[in-house]
């Protein structure tokens, strides 16, 4: 299990090289989130976080996923600071014996990271800056777990 909270960019492809190797896992799932520009006017995304609590919250979520789906391995990388459109914000990877467990664990991690890891997104455009509001659908997504 590896967790990284960092401002530096990361290369999703490089991060998963060798992931799950030597574990007899049959299924690897990755999710990578990229900065999306829905308005067509975004210049940057600023991610604020709560140092200390962020790492603890992510570790707790990842440990729960490891246990609940008997994962062979689990990786979470989440950036903070200033990001530009198209850049990777975060990624999760899961390794399990079977595909259902690897998919479910990755979706669980994403649902919890969205609403339970202390990050806040601010969109920066020529029109000004705007805090991204939490979506009710993201909170609702937790009820399935």
């Amino acid at each position, binding site marked *: 299990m590896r967790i990284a909270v960092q401002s530096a960019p990361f290369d999703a492809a490089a991060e998963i090289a060798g992931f799950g190797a030597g574990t007899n896992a049959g299924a690897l799932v990755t999710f990578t989130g990229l900065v999306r520009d829905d308005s067509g006017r975004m210049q940057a995304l600023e991610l604020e976080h709560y140092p*200390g*609590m962020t790492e603890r919250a992510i570790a707790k979520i990842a440990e729960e996923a490891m246990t609940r789906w008997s994962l062979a391995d689990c990786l979470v990388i989440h950036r903070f600071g200033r990001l530009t459109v198209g850049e990777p914000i975060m990624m999760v990877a899961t390794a399990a014996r079977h595909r259902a467990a690897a998919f479910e664990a990755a979706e669980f991690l994403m649902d919890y*990271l969205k609403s339970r890891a202390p*990050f806040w*997104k601010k969109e920066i455009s020529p029109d000004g800056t705007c*805090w991204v509001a*939490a979506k009710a659908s993201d909170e609702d997504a937790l009820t399935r777990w």
Partner: protein
Amino acid sequence: MIDVVYFAWVRERIGLPRERVETRAATVADLVAELSAREERYAAAFADISALRVALDQELSEFDAPLAGVREVAFFPPMTGG
């Protein structure tokens, strides 16, 4: 004395990221009431606590939680990670 930290628009409205507060508040809600009574910028930030979240010593908590033994209280809007 307790450390109080603010994030995102709560931090922006109150105008500072962190402060040490002399308080005898028994619960988070009591602390919110004390701070809101201090200045308008606090009252504005805490106007609707249903739009806020609180963490006690870096664990998500509730507004009716007791503050006894707590060293750090954090106020912030719902999280938008991922």
